[in-house]
């Protein structure tokens, strides 16, 4: 079980919870279970999502595992310049 922080725009779509508990081994499972629990998250995830694990931003590597007690945060996939 990991505790996941959500970026601001997601909070209203996840029952107004800024942090949610998810049982997930890796990013792929995390995102799938988040959408299962909160279908409204599908659209923002489709527009682009990144997951921060212990301070490191992962935008594409969805096989990245979530270590026990990891600090996890779901963030919009941002553009660079």
């Amino acid at each position, binding site marked *: 079980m990991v505790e996941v922080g959500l970026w601001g725009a997601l909070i209203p779509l996840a029952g107004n919870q800024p942090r949610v508990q998810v049982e997930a081994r890796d990013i792929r499972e995390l995102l799938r279970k988040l959408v299962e629990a909160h279908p409204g998250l599908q659209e923002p995830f489709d527009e682009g999502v990144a997951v921060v694990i212990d*301070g490191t931003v992962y935008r594409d590597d969805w096989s990245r595992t979530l270590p026990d007690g990891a600090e996890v945060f779901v963030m919009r996939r*941002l553009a660079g310049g």
Partner: protein
Amino acid sequence: MGFDPSYQDRKFNAVGTRPKRPDGIDKVTGRARYGADFNMPGQLVARVLRSPHAHARITSIDTSRAEALKGVKAVVTAADMPDLTGGKRSAFAILSNCMARDKVFYDGHAVAAVAAIDARTARAALKLIDVTYDVLPHVVDVDAAMAADAPLLHDNVFTRGVDPRPETSSNVAARSEFGHGDVAAGFAAAEVVVERTYKTEQTHQGYIEPHACVASVNPDGTAELWVCTQGHFVFRQTCADLLGMDVSKLRVTSSEIGGGFGGKTHVWAEPVALALSRKAGRPVKLVMSRDEVFRASGPTSATSIDVRIGATSDGRITAADATLRYSSGPWADAWAETGAMTSFACYDLENVRTVGLEVLVNRPKSAAYRAPSAPMAAFAVESAVDELATRLGMDPVEFRIRNAASEGTRSSYGPVYGPIGIGPTLEAAQAHAHMQAPLGENQGRGMACGFWFNFGGQTCTDLNVNADGTVTLAVGTVDVGGARASLSLVAAEELGIAYDRVKAVVADTATLGYNDMTDGSRGTFSSSMATISAARNAIRVMRERAAMTWGIPVEDVVWEDGHARARTPGQGNQSLSIKDIAAKSGNTGGPIAGHSELVADGAGVSFATHICDVEVDPETGATRVVRYTVIQDAGKAVHPDYVEGQYQGGAAQGIGWALNEEYIYGADGRLQNPGFLDYRVPVCSDLPMIDTQILEIPNPNHPYGVRGVGETSIVPPLAAVANAVSNAAGVRLAHIPMSPPRILAALDQKG
């Protein structure tokens, strides 16, 4: 694959040296081919008809007179570019921006395009296209656009991120919020509070090379696109999506790129050129004029930002709050959200809240510009932090050190930081001779910090060992500032061969797998990771070939200094150089290559601290930058010259933004300064030498410790210059650019 991207301490031979860049001779002799330097047989010339109105409904377009003009081969409008985006908002915005559909949303919005046998005919044809407009009220200012009675760009925009959904449409496309703690309680605990509203005007990336492409669509649907872009694979995907083409049939070649800075991460006219070529059945060259570049491509957001920060008298910040309003052009994007995330990222805050509002205005679609959205937020926050330090009677560097984020800090945008470099850049600034240098009359010093995320992404590299033992390295990230030199160094390092034995090229979309764009400071970070991986794969093959030659197990062959060597003493001192192995490759299993396809994640966030001295003429408000220092963490500087170049270039762009660059609109909503005469980028005589200090704190998520360096350098300058000007003038400047009339007015107000 088994590739481990984690950092391993090592001694470098090639990396960290400063050899000549491989594309240098082509570029100093004029042989390098940029977007407009390429031609195809039978090529037509395209020109685009653009809206003279800031906001209007298109009631009719009649292209028949233009089509009838001798020499005109195709005319396209939105009718030739049907909506295939399937309801995807961001894609529809790109399509609508490339060619106006029922409405034009800004001065310069494309309405129709012509392909003709020469420029003169194309220009004449534009005058024969009859467009009737129903002109609508417009709004260009970000604050005015939020007023209750502001003209609405769309009637179906209900602010996203607000619960419950608003019942009326507005120009505020989205709201986002970040933060933690109890901000009200934090302010209650504060002994000193500063509060101010800041404004920044819209700026352009100002790349010297206008957008240019040559598109050629064949009757069988195969197509080629030659284009100056930061991401030819992404352009291929976007153009194929918008025009309903097979990705495999569209081959995109990135030309040498004459500057991008984010502005060439977006498609502008490329789909139009392809549509014209498809219709005309001939190659089409489309080159934007400078006027078009300013009016219809790339500007960053104009902003209006409220900042409030409170602290105790011993210099500890107790609460921070910011509301950031960013113009996004006619369509929603996430620019304010990004600004809201970056604004307080440098600090360790118990109570913080940031709100971002995406505001629609009748200006060109806002685009990425080097650490997009961060410089404006940093300007507001770092100005406020400076003001707070002054109010507290504290040294601005010391105050920042006391409040700086560090490993384990919960960032203002949510996640907790790993090891980060803000502290070391501040300490380096504190120790820098620049901080102690005396100031002259009417001079002031300012400093500021900056943050940027940095990204990695999908990356693909081929490393081919040629028969003579030289190496051709094919990369898929566009080289915007010397990356081919850096990546050649990395290949040389990993293979243990000389730098000049490696030739790096940027491959086209048909010859290499998919690569994300060169954006997010990812070019050298990502492609060096892929190059290391590809080189290791090639080394494995070469060890196998040596083992085969010697008839020993591959495990007994090691790779050292460009040679395969037998490890076990009983096997003698056998050694084969890369050249020996390559020469025999035909007899040992065929060509030798190493490939790599990976996701380079873990770029790691980036910080910088800048110091700036200015002199302000008290009678005219003219500002001269007299000294400038950039301190930034590079993780590991692969080619230090080009790391310094990124630092200096970002600083120069930031100085221009701070002092003179701005989009100026008339009351009619038309851009008044679409040219380099009155859009005032810094010229050579405006700037001093720009000193740099490269810190090297290894990035744990890269084998060599490399960190992206391209963007962060533009984040601190707006605030560093503003703090310096405010100190020199004795009055706080809160509106960027600090042009002479604004400074003189502030001086007069001070009295």
